């Protein structure tokens, strides 16, 4: 019976299944990175600089003779951390701000929402670039910067949701019993906004990984010698015309990971939102 259900699901949503598999594989790779990588990702082999893909070094080596394959395996940890970290931070702050804004209304609402509108007046990558330059270029700050830039998305979503939830009878009832605002927001409003936030967060992971990698690429995220995919493409760019493998493989890793999250996110939205169901 269960198997039949899975088979039906796979047939109905083949792309979602592909996405889920990609995420599971990348997640597993990140988890067991030390066990499966053939070399130490930071170990220099100066005699083996810029070797093409081959037996000893499956995907070739970089300008310091480090094994690219091992570095790409370890890179999965940083990119997954970036993607999940960004949507978690943005999701949590966005949910709190959005629910407060929607529930309290009035001036608080006006100020929060105007501020969010203004943040949306900046292209994402541009504001993330400015913020991460101001915070100082490193991996942690680049994640913080992208998270801040993504907060308005969640604020708008949760505020809209809050406006409809706060009219429900159970909220009115809680108010009659004299429940505090903090209690109502945290116990009644936020739990009822979580489903759409989760969908939005899932859909946002792919984009978050891309922006974080782009920041690393332009020198504002992870700094060398960190095995971060965007930073690897950035250095590999110098050697592009003669050592094609250097910039190519880390980029493929980013691409596959983001495709996985986007397929998965699309599927989750289709499943939970009847408007998108086939």
């Amino acid at each position, binding site marked *: 019976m269960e198997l039949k259900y899975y088979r039906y699901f796979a047939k109905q949503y083949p792309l979602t299944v592909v996405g889920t598999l990609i995420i599971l594989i990348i997640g597993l790779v990140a988890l067991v990175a030390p066990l499966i990588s053939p070399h130490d990702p930071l170990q220099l082999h100066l005699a083996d600089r810029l070797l093409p893909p081959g037996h000893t070094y499956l995907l070739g080596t970089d300008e310091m003779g480090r094994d690219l394959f091992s570095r790409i395996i370890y890179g999965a940890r940083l990119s997954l951390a970036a993607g999940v970290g960004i949507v978690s931070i943005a999701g949590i702050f966005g949910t709190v701000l959005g629910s407060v804004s929607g529930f309290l209304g009035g001036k608080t609402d006006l100020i929060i929402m105007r501020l969010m509108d203004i943040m949306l007046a900046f292209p994402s990558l541009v504001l993330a670039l400015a913020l991460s330059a101001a915070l100082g270029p490193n991996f942690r700050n680049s994640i913080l910067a992208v998270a801040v830039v993504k907060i308005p998305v969640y604020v708008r979503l949760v505020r809209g949701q809050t406006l409809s939830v706060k009219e429900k009878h159970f909220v009115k009832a809680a108010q009659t019993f004299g429940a505090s605002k903090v209690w109502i927001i945290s116990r009644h409003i936020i739990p009822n906004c979580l489903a759409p936030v989760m969908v939005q967060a899932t859909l946002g992971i792919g984009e978050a990984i891309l922006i974080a990698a*782009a920041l690393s690429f332009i020198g504002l995220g992870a700094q060398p010698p960190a095995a971060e995919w965007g930073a690897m493409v950035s250095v590999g760019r110098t050697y592009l015309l003669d050592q094609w493998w250097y910039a190519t493989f880390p980029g493929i890793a980013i691409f596959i990971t983001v495709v996985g999250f986007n397929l998965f996110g699309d599927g989750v939205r289709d499943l939970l939102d009847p408007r998108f169901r086939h």
Partner: protein
Amino acid sequence: MNTSKFVAKRLGQLVLVLLGVTLVTFLVSHVVPGDPARMLIGQRADEQTLAAMRQALGLDKPVWIQYLNYLWGLIHGDLGTSIRTQRPVLNELLSFFPATVELTLFAMGFAVSIGILLGLLSATFRDTLTDHATRILAILGVSTPLFWLGLMALLLFYKYLGWLPGSGRLDPLINPPTHITGLYVVDSLISGDWIALKSSILHLVLPSLCLGYIQLATIARLVRASMIEVLELDYIKTASANGIPRSRIIYRHALRNALIPTVTIIGLTFGELLGGAILTETIFAWPGMGKFVVDSISFLDFPAIMGFTLVVATVYVLINMVVDLLYPLLDPQIKGVH
């Protein structure tokens, strides 16, 4: 509300949004960094210069006075001095501005024309192979790292096939056309400089297709959704009941209404393109504002970075206002609503 009132209201909002934009850039440049003075003059400055800088910036004054000083400077076109080039940031950005405009316009033209076409095909051949192919293309489009796509395009079309030039706006041996607009394609057309025209178009192909590709898919999906919605409306059903051929219904009756929401998307897409230009210009050594800002990053040239942020946000806000103002012209129903 009539059109002039609508325009006046939008212009009022514009001023507020631009003030908001300066507030954000002020916060990012004066409040977020631990030591704004050091950020503004660079890491190598000595203590004496730093102290003088703090004094000059008025960092000892209350934050709101600092903000007013900052605004006062902006009104006078003072975006600071670049640490790297030692020239005023505004002059630097203005000199790189036309190249970025040319690149984003070409990318936009590509993304919009092919995007609308694909969206239209998907909507009219719904749930067929074409439709599924566009859907997959859309997912691949939003999943591709733009900076990596550019590098791969360089490898294929520049190195291996040798079809297209890989960097810059013109062949190094060709003189730029007479400066009129700063857009090489337009300038060489006006001055009849066919050699420069050919070279500048060839140089635009790779960067603008890469930049546009990412947005193309988004536009295609939106046109599809909007077209499907319109095709289910009563007036379309009436038209087909009257025996009007399907192709005529699609192109004459449905498309016109389906494209109205697309105009908004075009405005919003400009933001993505201006952001994406940072990466594309870096890859293709395109001498625009994006390459300028990336070059500034390695010097931690903070005034240049903040100047770029402010200029791009302002351009983006202005474009979206123009789109908003065009809206009532395209859709007569809107006039009554506002």
